[in-house]
């Protein structure tokens, strides 16, 4: 399984020079299997450069959305394959309690926010609502669960050649410590645990420092680096990639945050700072 980060920024794209090393594009990850299946995780602005590499190669692509906040869908209208009439694009994402997935996506892919409507796109779009029963796409086996983040939000656990192949867990927006006096608690009562348990690679929200989180950002749906490391330790992951950087954090700040969190938590797993363009092979 090859995993490439095309967008690592959270909340808002940041085309600032001092943020270029970690990257300014919002959430998007490419997952490519040995059999050639391509999954796209979230459709932030990072999906635009990814799409340019997929323009002619695949008859089918699957875009797995964790949720429909703008930083996770804004690139969808600029994903080159959607303008290819020979392409079949499957979009997976959560409905809300009152709106189905089509109605929710149409809120963005329609005027006044976007000039072209969903049903006017040249490609064939097929929508699937998650969470749902476990499903397979090519050589990938996929599990979904709702996780702690404002509004319907899922995480994905993706295993190649299930059950023995490598596993990637994607939790880009996640606040597992919400409402807790101490964290972590038992796995059974921890948001996202079942998705992340013993994963080979966990890509996880690391938006805040501990001080930022506790001083005004509790309930915003994101995680401090220290809580993210505690969550990863609880889940027993092998490797951790930092992700979803706050748009006010430049490269030097992210470097300091990661170093301080490693010093505080001393994780037993490998920590890889997630950078735009970073490639993992599992």
């Amino acid at each position: 399984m090859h995993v490439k980060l095309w967008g690592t920024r959270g909340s808002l794209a940041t085309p600032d020079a001092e943020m270029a090393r970690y990257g300014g594009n919002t959430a998007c990850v490419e997952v490519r299997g040995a059999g050639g299946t391509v999954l796209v995780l979230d459709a932030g602005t990072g999906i635009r450069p990814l799409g340019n590499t997929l323009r002619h190669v695949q008859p089918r692509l699957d875009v797995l959305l964790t949720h429909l906040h703008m930083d996770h869908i804004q690139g969808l209208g600029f994903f080159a394959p959607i303008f290819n009439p020979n392409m079949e694009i499957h979009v997976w994402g959560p409905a809300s309690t009152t709106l189905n997935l089509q109605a929710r996506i149409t809120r963005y892919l329609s005027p006044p926010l976007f000039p072209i409507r969903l049903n006017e796109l040249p490609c064939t779009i097929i929508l699937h609502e998650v969470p749902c029963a476990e499903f397979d796409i090519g050589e990938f086996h996929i599990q979904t669960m709702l996780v702690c983040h404002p509004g319907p939000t899922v995480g994905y656990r993706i295993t190649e050649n299930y059950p023995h192949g490598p596993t990637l867990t994607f939790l880009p927006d996640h606040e597992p410590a919400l409402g807790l006096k101490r964290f972590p608690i038992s796995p059974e009562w921890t948001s996202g645990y079942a998705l992340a348990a013993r994963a080979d690679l966990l890509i996880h929200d690391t938006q805040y420092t501990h001080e930022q989180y506790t001083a005004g950002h509790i309930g915003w749906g994101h995680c401090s680096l220290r809580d993210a490391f505690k969550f990863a330790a609880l889940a027993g992951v092998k490797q951790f990639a930092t992700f979803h950087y706050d748009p006010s954090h430049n490269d030097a700040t992210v470097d300091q945050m990661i170093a301080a969190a490693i010093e505080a938590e001393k994780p037993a797993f490998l920590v890889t700072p997630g950078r735009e363009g970073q490639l993992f092979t599992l």
Partner: protein
Amino acid sequence: MFPKEIEVILARHLASCLAMPIFIVDDKGNLVFYNEPAELILGRRFEEAGEVMIDEWTSIIQISDEKGEAVPYGERPLVIALNERRPTFQQIWITAFDHVPRFIAITTFPLIGQADRFLGAMAIFWEVGGRNP
């Protein structure tokens, strides 16, 4: 061990932060959590009681109406929320782990999550003035 659904996790977290007594059961009616204010009425700490199967807790917690008549199983407030998936309000006598009768007002409601998934039920209750039947 089965992971709890996020709505149930958040319900527990909310209950842990509130000063009203709260009792949560899963979709099968098994007790999965009650908070510290509820411990004062039920007479045992949750850490001591732990998760309890429905048959066990419904036999431990005795319920009677304002006149002291036993409430039939199917008319117990949490059983109605579970079986009929509707909210209830009742004033009842309960005796729980410490065998002390207490008169409470109780509101119960089903927990229905995203995509209409039935997840269990929750009870919020208060001890109110009442003369021993």
